[in-house]
């Protein structure tokens, strides 16, 4: 294990990796840098990389002009809300699948996964019409429902793979010790599954935060989250690069941080436990 890797090889690999990593990260870095420029400098040719008048005015303007905080709160409400509702449904389901499996449990899991394969365009028109007729267009409640259904299969799956790793004997020991099902879940399963539940929560907040098919098609303003807000920059405000950058930076920063924390779980969640 601990063996000397030749210094040359190490140097070459390190330089190559940092160069490629920097290139891949550059668009994000560039967005962040641009958000601190004035519009004029943002446009300047040749571009200014570090030596310009740093300013935070764009952030203030973005908030002032478009009530940015409303979109943030919509994003927060939609992503956290839909994830919490989904957990409420998924924790009991995953418990049952992991610890009291029946003959059809595996088929059920597969079927849940298959609902995820359904392309949204196949459902867009009827969902749109149903929402229109029920007055759910541009409502947070309607969108929470959609995002909840969209991510429920992934949440059930992730929790299932985490619960599966908890030895059933421990729950049986609790049963022998006289714990009711409720106490078994609260005192034994939940504390042991905290890391799993937390990472499931994290990953699904990320997915819901970035969801940009339904949020674009089912909202206009009142319930619009950041995805829709940023989309509104497509024209002609898109020409205000500094403000676009400021808005973008604020939209991706929190999720970037969460994402970095959730790397490992992301692999597991998105591959449905096939790669760990």
């Amino acid at each position, binding site marked *: 294990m601990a063996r000397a890797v030749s210094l040359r090889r190490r140097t070459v690999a390190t330089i190559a990796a940092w160069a490629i990593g920097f290139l891949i990260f550059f668009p994000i870095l560039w967005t962040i840098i641009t958000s601190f420029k004035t519009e004029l400098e943002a446009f300047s040719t040749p571009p200014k990389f570090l030596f310009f008048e740093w300013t935070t005015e764009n952030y203030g303007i973005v908030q002032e002009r478009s009530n940015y905080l409303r979109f943030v709160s919509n994003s927060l409400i939609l992503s956290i809300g839909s994830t919490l509702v989904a957990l409420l449904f998924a924790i009991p389901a995953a418990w049952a699948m992991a610890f009291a499996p029946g003959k059809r449990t595996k088929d059920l899991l597969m079927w849940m996964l298959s609902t995820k394969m359904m392309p949204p365009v*196949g459902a867009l028109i009827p969902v749109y019409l149903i929402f229109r007729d029920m007055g759910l267009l541009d409502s947070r409640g309607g969108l929470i429902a959609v995002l909840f259904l969209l991510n429920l299969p992934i949440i059930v799956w992730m929790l299932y793979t985490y619960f599966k790793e908890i030895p059933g004997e421990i729950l049986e020991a609790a049963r022998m010790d006289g714990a009711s099902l409720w106490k078994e879940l609260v005192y034994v399963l939940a504390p042991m599954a905290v890391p799993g539940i937390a990472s499931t929560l994290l990953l699904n907040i990320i997915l819901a935060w970035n969801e*940009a098919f339904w949020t674009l098609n089912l909202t206009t303003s009142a319930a619009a989250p950041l995805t829709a807000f940023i989309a509104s920059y497509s024209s002609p405000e898109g020409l205000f690069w500094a403000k676009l950058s400021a808005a973008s930076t604020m939209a991706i920063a929190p999720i970037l941080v969460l994402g*970095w924390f959730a790397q490992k779980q992301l692999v597991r969640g998105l*591959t449905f436990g096939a790669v760990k």
Partner: protein
Amino acid sequence: MATQQTRLLGKLAVAPSVVVLFLWMIVPLALTIWFSLLRYNLLDPGNESFVGFLNYEYFLTDPAFFAALGNSLKLVFAVLAISIIGGTLLALLLDQAIVGRNIVRLMVIAPFFVMPTVSALVWKNMFMHPVSGLFAWLMKSVGLEPVDWFAQYPLTAVIIMVAWQWLPFATLILLTAIQSLDEEQKEAAEMDGAPPLAYFFYIVLPHLARPITVVILIETIFLLNVFAEIYVTGTGGPAGNLPYLVYFQGLLNFDVGGASAGGIVAVVLANIVAFFLIRMIGRNLEG
């Protein structure tokens, strides 16, 4: 392995999730199928009539359909190729003894967390703008004529944006897989005197076969559904894919019947992919 009482509780615990998912799957699908058989225009409400497969006939003979289908497939294949090949190489590189590997890894996977609308606008304006974009400046500074990406190569532009988001995904998963390669197997290969290339082809690649398949299948599902990047950059005309065409037909042209037929075509396409993916993951579940 449980008592009847726990099994009964289990069924009760699973039921709510199953019921809502079932409704979510079946109701819109049934309605879409139904609409696809109607002449149904939102501008002409109350005049719906049954037309059989006429919508399919129109949709499938529309040149826009073939253009969209072609764009869908090109997008999927191009991004797959970039992310799988690039991801494998990158994963191999990141598996080396690198100074500051964790930081490099953070930088590499970051694009995956960027919301599609942000990615689309940042690329379109700040990088691919024909006059003031960074690419234009780069090309001019080496004496080349700047490219107007979205006018000249709209699909390529979309592919670059989408690949930028999915390359990190492939890299992350393949890196995780490489790092799970048994240390003793590596040492055994070394004892056997396997040179690096042989080591890659005989040990690493077979080990990656499964994760690569998983990446291909999962990316395909998502890539078939790319929408925001096309919608936001306004490249729906030349580079629109199937989802965009359905959106365009239904919500911009108000032709519900035609759009629904398109939706069903997309469902069939996705199901072909899903068939393989589900079997694949199902097999993993056994192991």
